[in-house]
Each structure stands twice: as structure tokens, then as C-alpha cells.
């Protein structure tokens, strides 16, 4: 029997902890618990109000079994159509603009000044949430779908350009260089050396973004930027749960359909 073995026999064994410094480990655990308690105490839940609400919650859940598509049919279908229109237009414009910006934001094909400008645009677009952009654009352009359209186009640019740029930066250099070596111009080089490599993912991401855009378009109406959100907001304000349930079901169905289509498209391009 080796001496090392004798040393450990009869001793209890414990799994080595994730953070080896005991002080740090206990400190972090304590801080976390303290935070949770502090957070809970400041939330200030009005339990009696919540209790009253359970009733309405049950009503709402019931409304899902009996959604009302008819009594506000024109509002619902009009709103849904407007949401779809905003989604389509914003996706098309957003994707078209995001391609040059994505090219510009890829360090391996763009010169530094262009790179910085494009990265700046991407950063701004990603940092501002859709709803805040929508508020500002409604203030500037007035109520209506134009503000929603611009909002989603802007958001699409941030999303797609970033991913496209990352894709281009991580592409296979050799393939692209082979095209360059054949004496191609810049545009030809992009078309033959870069595009084939990033196209499948770009298509997949674009479809995914259409899906996101539709989901976002459902809330633009809350701030007056068009789409089904306004109808939904009105339904909640009037406690018309069955109409609200109908709208929510429609949104879920459209999102599911879009996810299904995007699954098929992505499988085909890859």
C-alpha cells in the first residue's frame, strides 16, 4: 500500500468547489442572498390586489378557449395586415441596407474609416431598443406605420450587419484569395469569393429576422407606430379579454408559421 493511499484512506471526500477561495465563495453566496432579500423587500407586492386579480386571470385564461374574432373583426384584421405590411417592407429595406453596412463592418475587406463608421451604426442600432426608437420616430414623423417601418428597418440593420460582418470575418481566406489571384476586381471578388461563403447563413438569418420583426411589430402600436399593438392595447384597456385572446392567438399562429417556413428555407439553403 502506497503512502499516498494511507494518507487519504478514512478521510472524507468532498467535491472540489467551483470557486476555490473559501472567503470569496462564501462572500459571493452571502451577497447574492442579501441582494435577493433586498430586492424582494423593495418590490412591494400588493397581495390583496394580486388575489383580486386571480379572478380576472382565470377569466382571461378562459377567454383563450373562446376567443372572439368577430366583434372587432375589422380592427383585428386591419391591424394584423398593417403589422404584416410593416414587417415585409422593413425586412426588405433593412436587409438591403444591412448588406453594404455588413461588408463595411468586416475588418478583413473594408478600409479602416469605413469600418469605424459602419461599426458605429451597428452599435447605435443595437443599443437602442425598438420601442424607444419608435417613440422618437413617432415624435418626429407623426403617428402611423411609417415610424414603425423605419424603426424595424433600423433594428434589422443593426442585427444583420453585425452577424454578416462576423461571418465575413471568419470566412475561409484561401477561397477568397484564390478569386483575388485570378485578377478579379473588388466587386467581382465580393461576388465570387465572399458571397458564396456567407450567402446560406445570410439567407437563414434574414428569415429569422423577419420572424423577429413580426413579433416586434406587434408592440409598435403601443406607442402609435402602427400595427396590431394598438388594437391589442385597446382590448386590454376595455377588459375585452376574448378579443385580446384572439389577437394573441393570431400572433402566436403567425410566429409559428414563420418559424416553420424559416426552418424549411434554412434546411434548403444549407
Amino acid at each position, binding site marked *: 500500500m502506497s503512502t499516498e493511499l494511507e494518507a487519504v484512506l478514512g478521510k472524507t471526500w468532498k467535491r472540489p468547489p467551483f470557486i476555490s477561495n473559501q472567503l470569496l465563495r462564501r462572500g459571493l453566496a452571502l451577497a447574492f442572498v442579501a*441582494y435577493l432579500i433586498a430586492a424582494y423587500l423593495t418590490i412591494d407586492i400588493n397581495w390583496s390586489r394580486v388575489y383580486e*386579480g386571480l379572478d380576472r386571470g382565470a377569466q382571461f385564461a378562459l377567454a383563450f378557449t373562446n376567443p372572439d374574432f368577430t366583434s372587432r373583426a375589422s380592427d383585428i384584421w386591419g391591424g394584423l395586415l398593417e403589422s404584416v*405590411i*410593416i414587417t415585409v*417592407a422593413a425586412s426588405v429595406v433593412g436587409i438591403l441596407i444591412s448588406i453594404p453596412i455588413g461588408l463595411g463592418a468586416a475588418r478583413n475587406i473594408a478600409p479602416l474609416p469605413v469600418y469605424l463608421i459602419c461599426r458605429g451604426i451597428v452599435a447605435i442600432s443595437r443599443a437602442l431598443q425598438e420601442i424607444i426608437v419608435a417613440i422618437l420616430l413617432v415624435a*418626429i414623423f407623426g403617428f*402611423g406605420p411609417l415610424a414603425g417601418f423605419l424603426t424595424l428597418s433600423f433594428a434589422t440593420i443593426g442585427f444583420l450587419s453585425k452577424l454578416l460582418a462576423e461571418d465575413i470575418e471568419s470566412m475561409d481566406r484561401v477561397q477568397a484569395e484564390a478569386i483575388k489571384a485570378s485578377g478579379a476586381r473588388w466587386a467581382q471578388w465580393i461576388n465570387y469569393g465572399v458571397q458564396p461563403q456567407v450567402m446560406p447563413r445570410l439567407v437563414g438569418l434574414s428569415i429569422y429576422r423577419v420572424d423577429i420583426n413580426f413579433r416586434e411589430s406587434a408592440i409598435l402600436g403601443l406607442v402609435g407606430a*402602427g400595427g396590431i399593438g394598438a388594437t391589442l392595447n385597446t382590448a386590454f384597456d376595455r377588459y375585452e379579454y376574448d378579443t385580446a385572446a384572439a389577437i394573441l392567438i393570431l400572433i402566436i399562429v403567425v410566429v409559428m408559421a414563420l418559424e416553420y417556413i424559416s426552418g424549411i428555407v434554412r434546411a434548403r439553403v444549407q
Partner: protein
Amino acid sequence: MPVIEKNGDTIWHRRTTKQSLAHSAMWLVGLAIFAYCWQQISNATTWFFVWDAPRIASDIWTRATPPKWEYISQLGRPIWDTLNIATLGTLIALCLAVPVAFLAARNTTPSALFIRPVALLIIVSTRSINSLIWALLLIAIIGPGVFAGVVAIAIRSIGFCAKLLYEAIEEIDEVQVEAITATGASRWQVMAYGIVPQILPAFAGIAVFRWDINIRESTVLGLVGAGGIGLQLSASLNVLAWPQVSLILLVILAAVVISEWVSAKVRGAII
């Protein structure tokens, strides 16, 4: 890729005539749809306001600058609330997402025929609906306040976390699970020893990723009355107090940047 003989020359085209016709037709239909959409948007727009937009934008800009810095003293509590909404909402969502994910994953679901579809329905329905809409709904049910925000964020995050988690569960190495099963371990032990260690890194990554997103989302929940800094934003917008609005937007921007930084750091440390 067809090769056509024409006047004795061999010409290569990328597509056959039929293919290229179908291709053009598709582009035409796409263009027509876009034109229709654009026309609808255009019809619903008061173009007078749009032409006036540069003037209004510069007007708002002059009013909004400089931000009202001293207003920050009133933002402490809303920022704290925002942080709580995001953090507690994420924690609740994770607790609920774990069982849903196990029920939804093909290799761990107790019944692929009955339970899996239900779990998938929960995932898709909570994911498709924006947290602002959940907040609207919850405010109608349990009244305005931070709690509605927490619950809204929690519900919205369930589907997101559960989807990523069940995909991680479906990708685990089955042989490791087999090895644990072969020792005579029970169903729960197989889960604790064979499955959980394999998905733990993914779980931690998802948690931090979603927390980052939730910080963003909780900054605007106040717009519909669900607590946090959005309440101040909404109030300032209503009275057109632009210097306050610009300060709040700066604070939100800072919060987003910081949370993204924290999440990137933590993910880097885990993986």
C-alpha cells in the same frame, strides 16, 4: 448548369431558360408585394409631417440638450427596480424553464406523444409574445407595479430559455448517459450524473445571456406601467420634458452597455 450550342459556339449559362424565367417571375412577385406594402404605408402617412421632420428633429434636439443632469438624483430607485425586474424575472424563468426543457427534449421527455407537444406549446406561446404585451396583460390582471414587470419578464423568458436548454439537452453525448445507466442508477440519478453535468455550461450561458436581454427589456416595461425606469421615461415624455428624456435615454444606454459587458465577462469565465 446547361451548355447550349448556338451558331456553332458553346455557351454556358447558369440556369436553363425555364429556370431563369421562374427566377424572374419570383423577383417580380416579390417586387410587387413590396410595392404594395410601400403604397399602404405611404397611404397611411401624413406626408406633410414627414417633410417637416428635419425641422422637428432639430427642434427636439435643441430642447433635449443638454440633459438635465441633476434629475439623476431621482433615478436611483427606478434603476434599482429595473435591475430587480430583470434579475428576479430571470431567476423565476430559469426555475420554470428547466422542467419545461426536460419535458420538451426528445431524449428526456416522459411521453413524446402527449407531454412533449404541451411543453413545445408553452415554449412557442411564451416566446412569441413580447414582454411589453405580457406586461399589459398582467397589469390588467394584477395591477400596475414592479411585480407585474417581474412576472412579465419571467413569462417571456421561459420559452426562450427552455428552447435553448432543450436543444442543449438533445445534443448531449448519449454514451455518458448509458454508462451511468449501466451502473444501476435510478432515473433521477442518471439525470443528476449523466445529463446535468453535460448541460450545465449551456445553462449558465443561457442564464447570463437572457439576463442581459432582460435588462434591456425591463428598461422599457415602465412605458406600460410595469415599473422601472420606463415609468420616468413615460412620465417625462407625457409632459414633453425633453432634457429629462435625454438623460433617461443616456442612463438606459449605459445600463445596456454595462449589462452586455457583465454578461460577456461572465460567459467568458464559465466557458
